[in-house]
């Protein structure tokens, strides 16, 4: 399996999804070699073996981290090829790189590729280096099928397929259209299309994405199979957070980029605040649209009820959910969208856009078109004012989320494998 991140070192939903999926696959007895650009050493390798691509010695030596578990190995490829990265996250990641640099070089033996560690003009170069390493690695390892997650690893997947003749499954967590709207990066699009075309089968995380794959990339429908994401069972006790504000809190949490629809959230806030001053809106996260949104909020004169938190880390996210009365995900285009599930797990009612994959699996959520600001505002108002509504969400929401298990998704992925292998 080729990925680019693995918990706890993740920038987006992909690492979490890969982790959940590999655990689910391991549950069904599938053995996995997982290749990532970088291994930090503190990843959960109980089910898998992580491989660092950076550690791959092209003179046929496999890096040994002293942690070889039975079912999964984990490979690292030293590249910061993370497609959606906030400025803060990026600097942190790069900072971590430096910190880990010394440890890594000590561990690694033999000749290896040095990945630049910068995200920018070298990206394409790194993608192709990753592919070269992948091909080398594929010859060393014993496996039945190649599974590549998102476009950065498609070249690697295709290289591995050409090197070994084993079937390739590519997994679409997001397409270039989700990331960039209509202004797609042609190079990225080409790689995506090449990956999907070369693959034996394509897995999409939702029917919403499947439709994009079929219509925008021209992939035959019978080749594209939807396997919805799930959520990791969470046994942790939720800390009870005491609210210190009398007002109800409505939260947006995510990258503040075009794709996530933050401006629709602002417009809905204006509508709600016209009727009801007893609400505060919180926008948590950062992104290229942040400054524009702040400017917008100020000029609309709602800044006294509209707050920005910046980028939130793990425990802060939990706290934010605990404080929230409503969670809104107004994404313009969201292949899946795992954060509403996290909100529901914290007993927070959610409003999600119909243009999201998660809307296909959730019943106990209010679904609106991202552009339908009236409906969004109305749903926010309803959730804040009609107690029966939040009560029913508490009754049903959490159990619904808990029923979305990775085991089930993994079982579907295994069916895809079997189909690809012609079994």
């Amino acid at each position, binding site marked *: 399996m080729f990925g680019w991140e693995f918990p706890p070192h993740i920038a987006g939903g992909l690492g979490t999804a890969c982790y959940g999926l590999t655990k689910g696959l391991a549950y069904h007895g599938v053995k996995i070699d997982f290749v990532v650009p970088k291994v930090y050493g503190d990843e959960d390798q109980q089910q898998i073996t992580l491989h660092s691509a950076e550690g791959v010695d092209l003179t046929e030596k496999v890096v040994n981290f002293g942690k070889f578990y039975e079912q999964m190995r984990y490979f690292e490829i030293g590249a910061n090829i993370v497609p959606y990265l906030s400025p803060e996250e990026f600097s942190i990641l790069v900072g971590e790189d430096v910190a880990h640099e010394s440890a890594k070089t000590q561990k690694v033996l033999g000749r290896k590729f040095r990945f630049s560690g910068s995200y920018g003009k070298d990206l394409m170069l790194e993608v192709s280096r990753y592919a070269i390493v992948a091909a080398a690695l594929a010859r060393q390892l014993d496996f039945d099928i190649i599974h590549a997650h998102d476009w950065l690893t498609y070249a690697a997947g295709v290289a591995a397929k050409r090197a070994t003749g084993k079937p390739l499954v590519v997994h679409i967590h997001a397409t270039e259209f989700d990331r960039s709207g209509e202004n797609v990066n042609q190079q990225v699009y080409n790689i995506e299309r090449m990956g999907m075309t070369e693959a034996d089968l394509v897995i999409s995380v939702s029917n919403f994405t499947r439709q994009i794959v079929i219509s925008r990339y021209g992939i035959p429908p019978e080749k594209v199979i939807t396997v919805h994401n799930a959520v990791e069972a969470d046994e942790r006790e939720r800390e009870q957070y005491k609210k210190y504000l009398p007002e109800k809190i409505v939260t947006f949490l995510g990258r503040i980029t075009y794709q996530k629809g933050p401006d629709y959230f602002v417009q809905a806030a204006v509508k709600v605040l016209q*009727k009801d001053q007893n609400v505060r809106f919180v926008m948590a996260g950062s992104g290229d649209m942040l400054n524009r949104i702040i400017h917008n909020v100020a000029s609309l004169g709602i800044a006294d009820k509209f707050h920005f938190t910046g980028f939130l880390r793990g425990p802060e996210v939990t706290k934010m959910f605990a404080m929230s009365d409503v969670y809104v995900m107004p994404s313009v285009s969201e292949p899946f969208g795992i954060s509403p599930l996290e909100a529901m797990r914290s007993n927070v009612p959610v409003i999600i856009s119909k243009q999201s994959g998660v809307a296909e699996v959730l019943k*106990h959520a209010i*679904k609106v078109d991202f552009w339908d600001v*009236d409906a969004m505002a109305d*749903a926010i108002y309803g*959730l804040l004012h009609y107690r029966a*509504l939040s009560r029913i969400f508490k009754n*049903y929401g959490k159990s619904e989320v808990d029923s979305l298990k990775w085991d089930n998704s993994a079982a579907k992925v295994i069916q895809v494998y079997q189909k690809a292998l012609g079994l």
Partner: protein
Amino acid sequence: MKKVCIYFQVHQPYRLRTYRFFDIGLNHNYFDDYANRNYIRRIAERCYLPANQLLYELITKYKGKFKISFSLSGVFIDQMLEYAPDVLESFQRLAKTKQVEFLAETYSHSLVSLKDKVEFQDQIRAHSAKIEELFNYKPKVFRNTELVYSNQIGADVFELGYEGVLAEGAKAVLGWRSPNFVYANPICPKQKVLLRNFKLSDDIAFRFSNQMWDQWPLTAEKYVSWFLAHDSKDEIINIFMDYETIGEHQRAESGIFEFLRYLPEEVLKHPKELEFITPSEAIKQLKPISPINVEHPTSWADEERDLTAWLGNDLQQDAFNKLYEMQEFINMQQDAEIKKIYRYLQTSDHFYYMSTKWFSDGEVHKYFNPFGSPYEAYINFRNVLNDFMLYTGFTCDIRHDLERLKKVNRRQEEIILELKHLLSVTEKNKKRAVPKKKSTDTSSIKVDKAEKTVTKSKSKKETTKQKDTQKSTQKASEKSTSKTTQKKINNKGN
């Protein structure tokens, strides 16, 4: 001889328009005229007009032998008057044949039978008056919204003179017994209950066009052969369904009209074994075989045949309770328009749209549902209700005032009873015992006074005065009670 009793339910709700919270306080148009007109027109073309035409032809053809019955909800009638006078005419033409019976129900197709007996009976009266006005026919048999029935509901309509009621032949109620007999209501044994044969009814309503069904395609001949195959002791087969089944739920392409066209012919081929009957004839001609005990309300919906489709979750219960909190307040209003809107809001469909059951129970619940999810339906309804409360001036305070007044009234009535009782006791004692000190007289005078103030305070509107009088009543009663009791003790001592 088995009787075949066919009854069609004709109902369409006044659907609410998308009503946002920013409309609250500004806009008091709650109903989606455009959508409602479209639905009525569409169903008129597909079902009401062609089906009425067909039934008219059949009734004329089989003079006096083919009979059917309808229940037209008041909200349907109102929409028909508004959007489809041609449909009304076709029903009137059917009514003139005298082979068509119209049943009584609640005007607004509401679930008020579960909530408020007085309003329930009012709604039935209003409906019955409307039917009489339009069709010159006074309904004799009652069917409740969605066939909701219990012993108590039966008794409530018996008070209005309905000796027959329609109900679901629910397995939970019948057990091993057959729905194909007339039963009696155990708490008013004169009332007869006709039970729906859900198997045969749903063969048409749900399965008719289902090609996966092993009996597909269903012909009139085959269907009637099932009537005959039934136990020969069976007395009546009750086929109850939505009228929209003909042509709308089961499209014309499915052959439903041909099925209906040949149904009477197939039945009448067996003149010794089968005949058509209307509900009122059935309750006149057939004797109940035994009482049927229905303590908890049943309905004709879903597998469970209970109320969970309308009142199964918190959203539905909340909306339902909030709506009926207004009942007494609305009773006091004079404005006919307000009363009309209030009744339209009670239509059961509004609660049906809030059902979370359709997540699992599928297609039927989605039918004609203008909302994407139960949550949207609930928010929309609550927005409307909030505005309606503002518009009519119903506030929490008024509700509390009303409740307090009711409590005060109740307490005062108790006091009056208590005082009357004590008065009679003292008077008895007075007669028996030798007349004593004057205190007896004074206390009885005080009692009279207390009674007067109580009756005075009954004039509702002056709440503040009420408080005072309440106090004085209480004081008076306290005084008088203490005195009279003392007196009593004295008398006893003597």
